[in-house]
């Protein structure tokens, strides 16, 4: 492979990862909508469509291994391939979390009201911005996005506390009963946990981007 075609392969890898991230983000945003609407058909599309993301993940992983084996990249090329190899895992996990949200929304029949949409949007924005930083080799943006994670974590903690507080005040004789309330509270807590994880994956992508661009591994370790 000539240097030109090698560079084309590297660029193709970047494009494939961008496409996969766009699909994962789309699925995630749909998952957030399903939390509110409980739309069964859309939930099925997200859940059944996860295999598409999984296949993209495997294809990109294979491309990375091939580049490492055949091109033995070094310096910035090595950091790009190594970072991409790790980032693609984070994207795939965001896809998995999107299917979780779709399941919670479908099971609840929508109406999950725990500010999930709001914090979910924040996590989605972080993920999207992290991918832009990766594509643009933008270290400063990566640092700024990672710094937002503390705020997201705090909001997730507050929401978790609110759910638990609400559960503790539920009375057995109330119309929906403790059993039902336990189920919904459980879904709400899982929802918050998964949204918080999307933020964590955004931070991971920022960490790998910083290593890729500036050889800065502070966020990795």
């Amino acid at each position, binding site marked *: 492979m000539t240097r030109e075609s090698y560079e084309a392969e590297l660029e193709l890898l970047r494009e494939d990862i961008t496409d996969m991230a766009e699909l994962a983000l789309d699925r995630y945003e749909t998952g957030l909508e399903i939390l509110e609407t409980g739309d069964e058909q859309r939930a099925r599309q997200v859940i059944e469509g996860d295999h598409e993301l999984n296949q993209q993940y495997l294809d990109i992983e294979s491309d990375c291994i091939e580049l490492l084996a055949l091109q*033995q990249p070094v310096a910035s090329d090595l950091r790009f391939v190594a970072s991409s190899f790790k980032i693609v895992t984070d994207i795939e996990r965001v896809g998995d979390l999107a299917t979780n949200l779709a399941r919670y929304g479908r099971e609840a029949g929508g109406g999950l009201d725990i500010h999930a949409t709001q914090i979910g949007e924040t996590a989605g924005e972080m993920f999207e911005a992290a991918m832009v930083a990766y594509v643009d080799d933008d270290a400063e943006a990566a640092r700024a996005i990672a710094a937002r994670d503390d705020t997201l974590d705090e909001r997730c903690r507050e929401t978790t506390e609110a759910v638990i507080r609400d559960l503790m005040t539920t009375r057995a004789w109330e119309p929906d009963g403790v059993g039902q309330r336990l189920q919904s509270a459980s879904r709400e807590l899982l929802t918050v946990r998964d949204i918080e994880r999307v933020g964590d994956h955004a931070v991971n992508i920022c960490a790998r981007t910083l290593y890729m661009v500036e050889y800065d591994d502070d966020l990795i370790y």
Partner: protein
Amino acid sequence: MSEPEPETQTESTDEQNESASLIDTHVTADSETGRPRVHGESVVEARNLDVHYGEEQALSDVHLDIYEREVTAIIGPSGCGKSTFLRCINRMNDLVESAKIDGQLRFRGTGMYSDEIDPVALRRQIGMVFQHPNPFPKSIYDNVAYGLRVQNETVTDDIVEEALRRAALWDEVKDQLHTSALDLSGGQQQRLCIARAVAVDPDVLLMDEPASALDPIATSKIENLIEDLSQEYTVVIVTHNMQQAARISDRTAVFLTGGELVEVDDTATIFENPDDQRVEDYITGKFG
């Protein structure tokens, strides 16, 4: 050139004192963490080293330390001066009439080009292995013994065996020591040349693309051997094979066109995060 700044610099009090070390560079700053990194003693020191072949400049203002019991790889494009540097270290350029050497090159603190240095004695301490195996048309035994005999030293079977063992060749040739060295395979011939070099117990081993003419299996044996040899010897290897440099060396020096030493650092740093954009471009194949 971006040789990491020495952590401690102890200038010689007498610049005319040929036996004094120029700079105590046993400790360098780790380019990643900034922490001091301890090396062995500096065996070879180049300072402001210029080499010309007639009007053509082959090396330009080279500053480089070769540390004891480390493998130092020298890489760079053709014509960048890496072999010239290697040849300076054991004064092989003395044989090139047009070669003119300026600056300072010291071996364990003594100027290599000072009048008190006997080039033949120097070459005993600094052995050389070339790109193409060059055994003499003699027996395996006589090849190993050659260096000792020309220096009128006693040759014993034990010395020959030890040299062949150090070169990882003994098990393959112990039953045919008195057959012609030319009957060996290319890889075996190269290891025989290494045995010949280590038989005189040198301080430094210079290797000029020692595996470039060998197949992957023979190359692998040579690379393993270099790693083993670095436990006892200081090794300097010139190679065009960057993966080889990455595999076997502790430090890598990158020369670029014009004989300029552009960057030297620990090998992991050179191949993961070089400091100089020209090095980045060269090792990633964008230039060179």
